[in-house]
């Protein structure tokens, strides 16, 4: 007999271990209600400590001969959802896997109103949003140039909602291939030095540098591109929720820009309008033809 709980081998920490385990359980015919999945990150061990043991060691011979075809669509979905921070994801994934195979519900993934599928799709959506936000909101700071290679070196700090660092890696690797960079997060850090990605343990915020040398210029841009006549704070916050602000250099301007927006707009509206200037002498403008510029004169005579 094996216990799924209490044996560290069965604490699931990534997609690969889940997959191996799930394949075994499926083949041995352990129903979802009987399988216990423990996430390596959560400390719910006590909760399960007294639960019954889950399955037999000897695979059921009859079941084992059956080859279960798992769609690529499900595997992709499962891999995505495996990054989620919800410790229940492993058992949910197994339940869906079971239903797709032994449960005979081959078309289950198409039923977007099924409760399990809704939950899975909801989680997948959260992952994809988290990923998207990581691609968007990581801010590199230059820390120097490598003495040997001459390559520019950058560091960033980011706090993803889910375990997506490795998922996010290809984007950064393909885009910033020619620089050396590290992205530090509380879960895991990744480093690129030109030929290979490497991963190290997560670090606390203090280990990341703060205050990049270009932040001021970036804030100047942010301030100038904002249009005070069109304040729409909610639209902004739904795309860039407050939780991200502390790691975005430009976010410190939000309060100030918002507070002064209406005054700036009103000042623009009440300011005296300017009369059109007559057309200057310019060969190019003249080449545009008779009509061009005439409108001004017409208006002024009105």
């Amino acid at each position, binding site marked *: 007999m094996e216990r799924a709980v209490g044996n560290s081998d069965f604490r699931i920490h990534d997609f690969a271990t889940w997959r191996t385990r799930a394949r075994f359980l499926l083949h041995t015919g352990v129903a979802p209600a009987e399988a216990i999945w423990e996430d390596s990150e959560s400390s719910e061990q006590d909760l399960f400590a007294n639960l019954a043991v889950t399955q037999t060691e000897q695979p059921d011979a009859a079941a084992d001969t059956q080859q279960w075809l798992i769609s690529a669509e499900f595997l992709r979905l499962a891999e995505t959802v495996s990054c989620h921070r919800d410790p229940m994801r492993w058992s949910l994934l197994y339940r869906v896997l079971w239903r797709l195979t032994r449960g005979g519900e081959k078309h289950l993934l198409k039923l977007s109103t099924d409760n399990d599928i809704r939950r899975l799709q909801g989680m997948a959506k959260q992952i994809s949003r988290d990923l998207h936000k990581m691609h968007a909101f990581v801010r590199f700071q230059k820390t120097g140039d490598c003495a040997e290679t001459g390559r520019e070196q950058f560091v960033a700090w980011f706090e993803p909602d889910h375990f997506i660092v490795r998922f996010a890696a290809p984007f950064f690797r*393909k885009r910033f291939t020619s620089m050396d960079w590290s992205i530090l997060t509380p879960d895991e850090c990744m480093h690129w030095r030109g030929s290979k990605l490497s991963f190290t343990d997560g670090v606390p915020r203090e280990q990341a540098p703060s205050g990049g040398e270009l932040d001021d210029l970036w804030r100047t841009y942010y301030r100038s591109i904002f249009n005070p006549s069109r304040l729409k704070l909610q639209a902004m916050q739904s795309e860039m929720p407050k939780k991200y602000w502390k790691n975005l250099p430009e976010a410190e301007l939000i309060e100030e820009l918002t507070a002064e927006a209406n005054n700036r707009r009103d*000042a623009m509206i009440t300011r005296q309008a300017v*009369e059109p200037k007559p057309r200057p002498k310019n060969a190019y403008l003249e080449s545009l033809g008779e009509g061009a510029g005439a409108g001004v004169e017409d208006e002024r005579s009105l």
Partner: protein
Amino acid sequence: MDQDQKLSILADAAKYDASCASSGAKRRDSRSGAGVGSAGGAGICHSYTPDGRCVSLLKVLLTNVCLYDCHYCINRRSSEVQRARFTPEEVVDLTLSFYKRNYIEGLFLSSGIVRSADYTMEMVIEVARQLRDVHDFRGYIHLKTIPEASQELIELAGKYADRISINIELPSQEGLDRFAPEKNLERTQDAMGGIRQRIVEGRSERKAGRAASTRTARGRQAPAVYANGQSTQMIVGADRSDDAAILQRADHLYRGYELRRVYYSAFSPIPSSSTILPSKAPPLVREHRLYQADWLLRFYGFDVGELTAADSLDGGHLDLDIDPKLAWALRHRQLFPIDLNRADRESLLRVPGLGVRSVQRILQLRRWQAVRYEDLRKLRVSLEKVLPFVIVADHHPARQGLDDENLRARFAPPPEQLEFDFGRHNAAAGAALHHAPQATELKQARVSAHSGEL
């Protein structure tokens, strides 16, 4: 003048251009170790300003000195703003520095017209040329071109830029005569035709290239011609054009010029405004309704005439209180209710409150089971909007509900809510405001601020 001051003037001068899309570029990266950056796919919004707009590109003018006198524009020659000018090297440097810090997807460069259209175009192109040829930059470049520039220069711009655009500004020559006296509708459309030509040629060159040499294992290289799309912008509310005229112009451009996107920009108060401009800016909700209508034209199979029909409440204008699809449905109640378990895709797309994604899901679902009230709830569609117009297995709307005189009133918000947060969009969707929609994007139901589930 230092870099910081120039940036503040020349970004301020560029902010009235609504376009910020960085999507739809030819896919490429620098994984081989050569070059800087990557592009392709949906594009990324790297930040949002408190006006709800996304910051995706470094959007600046090369100079805000301008010979023209477009009355809605802060940079017109009569305006009393402070003027500045970047050198091409300065813009190149800023773009690369911002890009390497992951602030931006690339550059959106435009310019006031100095000396002549060709002279200005040459300067703008020089920036793109340096980025591509000197620095092997593979990020996104959008160049604004001047319709009066020579065709060779427009072609050259297309060689370097992923997107080129010319602003049509106003839907009629009459409006241009009054508000942008140097501009000419015909010249603008001719230039758009030239760009279209370049894009089509580029596409077939790429196809031929792809056939000749298969992609190397070393990643996706930079293409020989970047241009892959054009877009334009129309100013709303400056001239007297009604929504029908604006949408007709947009439709004409979509059909004839391979436009990816028409942007609608409610003219907004500017410092140093012109005496010729109306003193009152149009309600922002008008712009929003135009975007919704635009979406219906492109992805829902509607015709302009259906959306701004003469029998609508507002003649040539869209109803400001309710979305254009709902307004259309209320004018065509005899076509409803629609049976969600039987109707074809086209009909489903016409149901108020059902977006492209929901329709997709319903079609999938009903292959396996009857669609019921509970399913609609779980699909998170607006039940209030959908229910009066549909039949599902366990719901049949009372006919008198559909015929109710007051049905419209149930949807129209009380007036004070109108200005409030109409730009709300699907917050859960990963994608960003103003993205030009790609087919795949729509499939994934990434919803832009200007679309929403209609």
